[in-house]
């Protein structure tokens, strides 16, 4: 499942569904709204392109790390401190591939998926700067 959506997800159900035949390891990445002296966080996506790019990343990770299953759910809309932002579930035969595949996916998402975050504070708000100068690599 590769999605951009406002709703939260049932992480336990995703982990169960990731246990495909041959699975020896499931790795979950759960990115969470951190309390950086903010009230809420507003997330915005170029949804069609974001999903297409995450599908491309999932295919590349599956091939490179021999993953058996990949879920990527990136939330949008207004989130509170402690809410889930990004859930990545991968399964593989062994832990090195599962860990490496999960790490690859999050780093690639940060480079190229058109999603933006605005931290809302008591005094207004501030857009979180991208970690990569250009982002949205060659699509």
């Amino acid at each position, binding site marked *: 499942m590769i999605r951009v959506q406002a709703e939260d997800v049932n992480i336990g159900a995703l982990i169960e569904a990731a246990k495909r035949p041959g699975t020896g390891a499931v790795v979950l990445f759960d*990115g969470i709204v951190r309390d950086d002296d903010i009230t809420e966080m507003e*997330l*915005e*996506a*170029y949804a*069609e*392109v*974001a999903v*297409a790019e995450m599908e491309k990343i999932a295919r590349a990770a599956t091939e490179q790390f021999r993953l058996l299953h990949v879920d990527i759910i*990136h939330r949008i809309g207004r989130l509170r401190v402690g809410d889930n*932002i*990004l859930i990545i579930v991968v399964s593989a035969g062994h832990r090195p591939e599962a860990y490496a595949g999960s790490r690859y996916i*999050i780093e690639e*998402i*940060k*480079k*190229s*998926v*058109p*999603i*933006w*975050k*605005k931290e809302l504070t008591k005094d207004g708000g501030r*857009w*979180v*700067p*991208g*970690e*990569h*100068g*250009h*982002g*949205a*690599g*060659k*699509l």
Partner: protein
Amino acid sequence: MTVKLRFFARFRELLGTDIIVEPHDGTLLAALVAEVARKNTDGYAAIFDEQGTFREFVILMRNGKRVETAEAGTITVADGDEIAVFPPVAGG
């Protein structure tokens, strides 16, 4: 012809989004973005520098595919195009 412009994040706050325009044949992509951006001084200044060139960090897409800003002055828009303009991504 009709073309849709979509701005995101800070650019959306300044200029709006899902803007439908009706450019004449032969309109260049860069000129179209500049024309729409000019309706808001801060929005224009966020995207273009003093020389009217796209700022280095601005990302352009045409129909979901990346277009180098340096080439946007040579590409003509076509009927039904969706042009997206946004700052560096910050998801995850």
